């Protein structure tokens, strides 16, 4: 299992992504899966960096039962990205906006997303079947 804590967070968004992508759990995966993983990790950590106000992120990556599990923990405000409604992807051009697209991508590209908040900590877990 990959266990990593990032504190402080300034300018480390690429580092977080690379840590996940270079882990022993992710590197053996096929390219298309890695593409999705990268995208989702980027969207999630961007969210956390931008909206949580947390000064730290903790990362857990493990593989079990044919599933890749990536779990983010941060100490920011309670922020459940799954709360928000998905943006309307069939809206006409003028009505389109960017907000929420990242999480939508994660939802679609991962097999499951779960969120918990407890004791000042946000837990966001992504799971993808890999076997």
């Amino acid at each position, binding site marked *: 299992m990959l266990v990593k804590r990032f504190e402080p967070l300034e300018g480390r968004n690429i580092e977080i992504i690379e840590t996940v992508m270079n882990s022993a759990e992710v590197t053996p995966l096929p390219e298309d899966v890695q593409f999705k993983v990268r995208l989702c990790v980027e969207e999630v950590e961007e969210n956390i960096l931008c909206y949580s106000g947390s000064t730290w992120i903790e990362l857990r990556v*493990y593989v079990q*039962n044919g599933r890749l599990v990536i*779990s983010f923990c941060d100490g920011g405000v309670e922020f459940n990205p799954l709360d928000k409604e998905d943006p309307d992807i069939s809206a006409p051009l003028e009505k389109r906006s960017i907000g929420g697209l990242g999480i939508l991508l994660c939802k679609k590209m991962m097999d499951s997303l779960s969120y918990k908040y407890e004791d000042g900590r946000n837990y966001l877990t992504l799971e993808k079947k890999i076997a």
Partner: protein
Amino acid sequence: MKHGHSFSAKLTLNVLALSSVLFLVSLGIVSYWSNSLIFEEASKGARNLVDKNISEINGILSSIEVSVSSNAWNVKEHLSDPDFLYHVTDRIVSENENIIGSAIAFVSNYYEGKHFFSPYSYREQETGRILSKQLGNEDYDYFYMEWFSAPFESGKPYWGEPYFDKGGGEQLMCTYSYPLTDSQGRVFAIMTADIALNWISDIQAAMKPYPNSTVVLLSSIGTILSSKSIVGNLGENIYSNFENSTVRSRNVDKILNSVLNHEKGLMQYSVGSDHGFVVFGPLSNSWVATVSCTYSDIFAGASRILFLIIGIGILGIILLFLLCYRVIRRLTQPLSEFANSATEIAKGNFESSLPEIKSNDEIGLLRDSFANMQSSLKNYIDELKITTAANERFESELSIANKIQAAMLPRDFPVSDKFDLFACQKSSKEVGGDLYDFIVKDNVCYFAIGDVSGKGVPASLVMAATKAAFRFVATLNLPLDQMIFRINNSLSENNERGMFVTFFLGRLNLDTGLLEYCNAGHNPPMVTRADGTVCKLEVIPNLALGVWSDFPFKAQSAVLGKGDRVTLYTDGITEAEKADGSLYGEERLIELLSKNRDMTQEALCSCIMDSVNDYFEGRPQNDDITLLSLGLKR
């Protein structure tokens, strides 16, 4: 050590045998060739000798002939003065020192009233004075003498057969007769010259080419004219000598025949142990000159040299043998040392030192290869030791892990009229960390199943810790999410290795059928309803234990009716792999559960186990297989 010796000896003998053969062959060739040359030389020499002999004697003979014939005119001039004829004979004798006597013998009554008229001059032996007298008288009727009759009848000059002179000292003598003819061609007188033949022996003696050579002069009928020799004495007839002789052979006969025929040539003879050749040739007067040479003489020198060479050769070969043997012994000494080193190495002593070889030849190469082999062997054995030790450690680790695991799994399964529970496990070769556990307390049954990440002893220890945490927490009677919260924290605290456990915790109220449960990253259990429908229990996945401390697990609940059961399993079942890579999958499991809804948990478990085992088709199991099933009885 016998081996080493015989190898050197063998090698040496081979070398020597070859060199001996070569030596002998070359010696033979050279010997034969040189013998031919020697024979050539000898025969040439003998021929030359004979020729020289012949010409020398011919010269003397012809001088005598000339002495006589040149005075013939003188006689013819002074036929009317018979007394003058003494002067002629004197002159003949005095002019040629070889001529001992000379006579002019007239036919009977050439001069009136004189039956014998033969003026004769001779050299007196002691004084050397020349005397003269009348040769013929009643006691010496020369008409019957061969020296008169032969030329008288043939009308040609005649060399007479040698004879011993009884009158003048037992010398071998010979007479040359020269007939005088008148105008009608009738012989009227014979002029003679007597010569002694002692000078022949002197000439012959000086001519001997080899110590055992015989130089013999023969008259036309074979009378020996040289002094005593092996073929006979002076005056003896060689033919009669040989006829009487016991030593006789065909080749001697042949030679005698050729000589008798006044031929010129060279012939080889062998008489008993005597071998040689004879060179012979006729003189102008049908005498024969012969020279014989024995092979023992001719080849004496060569034989000596041959013996010398053979002697040196043998000596050399012996020396060579000794030297060779020693050198080869010394050079192949390392080989037996190598054999010793090899024996040492075979015993396991890899450090044994090799013989010191500095040469750049094959022995040096052997040494280098040997040393290379030795160090490779040593390295290989060292690595093998390490690998074997590691394997043994691994094996023992494996067995420890297996033992821990086996000890962790309870086997006294509860059966009551309300419910029954059964669990079983089959480990794969590589010990994973599957666990199950259950506690029945009053009317509640706690049960759990788990799958530890990693393998070997560390996984077994985490499994033990998880089980201990479960057992402890089960005594506390807390809500399930708190129970699992605590179990999680006890694992997360000292989790340096990053191990985690997927876990399913359940609590079934045996009276009410309330099933409280909390999943931690594990695959959801199957619920089989009494009517046979099977579905996956709906679970919030949460996260595996040991990932986040203080993670807020969320528990859930469901209700089981009578005849329902819940079956927990690890992914070793659904991920069981056939040879072609296809997996057992959930469908098969669901089918089994549905078909066998009325089975006891024990029967169900063995049914599922058998099914999975069969699925492997003899291939090794790839992961631990764990099952736990509990159900409310109808």
